[in-house]
C-alpha cells in the first residue's frame, strides 16, 4: 500500500495554474524527492497534501486517508515543515519543542528517542531564542518539532534552501536515518545535486511532472552523447561550439560547457573547427540530473 497516493491533482490561483494534473505514488518508508525550481508548484502540492488547501481537481490519499474528507486524521499523522522557517522566533529552542509537543498532545520524553539524534545537536543552545539560530540549526529545530508526535509521513518543503553546504549534507544524513526508522518522507528541493540522496525523484516544472524514477534511471534516460568542453575563454568557446558541425546544443555547465552531439559528430573535426579557441579540452562526460532536466524541459 502506498503511503502517499496523488491522482491527477490540479490547483489554480486566479489565472496561474500552480498544479496541472499531478499524479504519483510514494511507497511506505520511501524517501521521495520533488526536484524543481521556484514556481514548479512544490509548495502548493505540500499544502494540498498537508490538508491546508483543497485541490480544484483530482484527489490524494495520505497514509490511507483522503485529504479532503479525513483531513483531521491526516493532521494527526503527518509532520509538516513549511518552506519558510515557521517556529516561534521569540521562544527558546526548548520552549518551541515543548510547545509543539503540547500542540499534538504528546510528551517530549515519549518521542525523545526519535528526536534525539537531531535535537542533541542543538541542545547546547536550548535556552537560545529560535530567531537567533543559524540557518542550519533552525532547520534542525524545525525538523525536531515536526517529528515530536511520531508522524508516519513527513512533508519537508525545501528544508535545505538558504542553508550552507555543510548543514545541508548533515540534514540529508538525518533524513536517511529517519527513513531507516520507517518514516515515509516527501521532500522538495530546487537543487539538482541533492536528487541523488533520494530513493526516487519527480522532476517538476511549472505545475507539471517531467519525469518520475530513481535518480539513476532518470539519468539513464538521457540517450544522446554528451561532452564536456573547456577553453581559456569560456564565452568565445560557447559561441564557437554552437556553430560547429554535429553540435545539437551547448550550454554552460559549471566549470565546463556541456555539449550534446549528433550521431555525425566527430571529435577531431570539432577540434579542427575550433582551432582558434585556446586551451581547448574536450572529453565525453556522464549526464547529470540537471542535463536530464534541461532535456525534459525542452521537450
Amino acid at each position, binding site marked *: 500500500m502506498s503511503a502517499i497516493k496523488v491522482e491527477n491533482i490540479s490547483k489554480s490561483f486566479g489565472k496561474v495554474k500552480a498544479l496541472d494534473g499531478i499524479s504519483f505514488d510514494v511507497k511506505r518508508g520511501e524517501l521521495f524527492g520533488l526536484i524543481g525550481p521556484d514556481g514548479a508548484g512544490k509548495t502548493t502540492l505540500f499544502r494540498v497534501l498537508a490538508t491546508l488547501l483543497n485541490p480544484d481537481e483530482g484527489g490524494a490519499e495520505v497514509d490511507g486517508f483522503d485529504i479532503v474528507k479525513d483531513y483531521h486524521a491526516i493532521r494527526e499523522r503527518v509532520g509538516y515543515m513549511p518552506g519558510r522557517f515557521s517556529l516561534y522566533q521569540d521562544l527558546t529552542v526548548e520552549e518551541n519543542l515543548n510547545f509543539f509537543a503540547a500542540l499534538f498532545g504528546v510528551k517530549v520524553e515519549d518521542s525523545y528517542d526519535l528526536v534525539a539524534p537531531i535535537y542533541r545537536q542543538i541542545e547546547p543552545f536550548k535556552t537560545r531564542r529560535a530567531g537567533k539560530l*543559524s540557518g*542550519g540549526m533552525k532547520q534542525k529545530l524545525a525538523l525536531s518539532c515536526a517529528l515530536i508526535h511520531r508522524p508516519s509521513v513527513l512533508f519537508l518543503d525545501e528544508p535545505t534552501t538558504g542553508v550552507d553546504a555543510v548543514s545541508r549534507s548533515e540534514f540529508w544524513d538525518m533524513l536517511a536515518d529517519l527513513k531507516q526508522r520507517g518514516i515515509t518522507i516527501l521532500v522538495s528541493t530546487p537543487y539538482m545535486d541533492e536528487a541523488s540522496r533520494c530513493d526516487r525523484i519527480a522532476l517538476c516544472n511549472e505545475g507539471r511532472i517531467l519525469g518520475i524514477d530513481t535518480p539513476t534511471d532518470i539519468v539513464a534516460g538521457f540517450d544522446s552523447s554528451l561532452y564536456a568542453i573547456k577553453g581559456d575563454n569560456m564565452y568565445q568557446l560557447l559561441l564557437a561550439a554552437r556553430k560547429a558541425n554535429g553540435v545539437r546544443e551547448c550550454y*554552460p555547465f559549471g566549470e565546463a560547457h556541456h555539449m550534446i552531439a549528433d550521431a555525425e559528430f566527430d571529435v577531431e573535426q570539432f577540434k579542427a573547427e575550433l582551432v582558434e579557441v585556446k586551451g581547448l579540452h574536450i572529453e565525453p562526460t556522464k549526464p547529470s540530473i540537471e542535463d536530464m532536466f534541461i532535456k525534459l524541459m525542452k521537450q
Partner: protein
Amino acid sequence: MSDYIISVKELTKCFGDFTAVNRISFDVQRGEIFGFLGANGAGKTTAMRMLCGLSYPTSGSGTVAGWDVMREGEQIKRHIGYMSQKFSLYNDLTVWENIRLFAGIYGLSKAETEKRAAEALERLNFSSERNTLVGSLPLGWKQKLSFAVATIHRPKVVFLDEPTGGVDPITRRQFWEMIYEAADGGTTIFVTTHYMDEAEYCSRVSIMVDGEVRALDTPARLKEQFAAESMDEVFRILARGAKRGE
C-alpha cells in the same frame, strides 16, 4: 593603475571584541568571474559590505574600481553594480520605468538613459516588452533584465548575490551565458553565494571560514588540491573545521 579591479590587503572588520573579517587579502582581475564563498557566519556578508562601500574596514587597505575602500565608500557605491536575487526590480513598474529609475539613481542623463536603455533592450530582445509590467514577466526574463539594470551605468565591477538560487536550469544557463558575455566584454563579476554549483561557474573562487580566506584558486585546482569531486566537497572539507557556530 594596475589591471586589478579589486585589490585588498589585510582587510579587517571588528565589531567590539569580535573580529568578523580577519585580515583578508586578494586581487581580482579585470574580466574575471570571482566567486566569494563562505558558510553562514563566516564573515562573507561583512566582507561584501566593505567591498561595496557600505561599511568601512577597521584596518587594512585596498581599492575597488580604483577607489579607496578605507575612505571613498560613496564613490565605490556609485561605480559598482549590484544585483541580488531577492531584491532587484520593482514588480509594479514597467520594464522601461525600471530602467529609467535605476539609471536616474546612478545619475545618468536623460539622453544617455534613453540610448543605453534602448541598447540594453535590443541586446536582450526585449524591445517589444518595454511597457510590460515587470511583475508579469517570467522569472528568467526578470533576471536578465535585472542584470541589465545593474550594469546600466557600465560599472567596472558587478556584485551578484546568489544570482541563480531557485531558478530553473534553462534560465540559469541563459543567465550564466549573459555573465560570461559581460565578463568577456571586460566587466568584472564578483559572485557571493553559498550554493556550490554556482561556484563551479567562476573563474576563481575564494572560500571564507571563520573570518579568513582559507582557499583561493580556480575550481579545478581547488578540487585537485583537496582531492574532491566537486566544489561542494571542497567546501565541506574546509568548513567542517569551522569554529564559529555562529
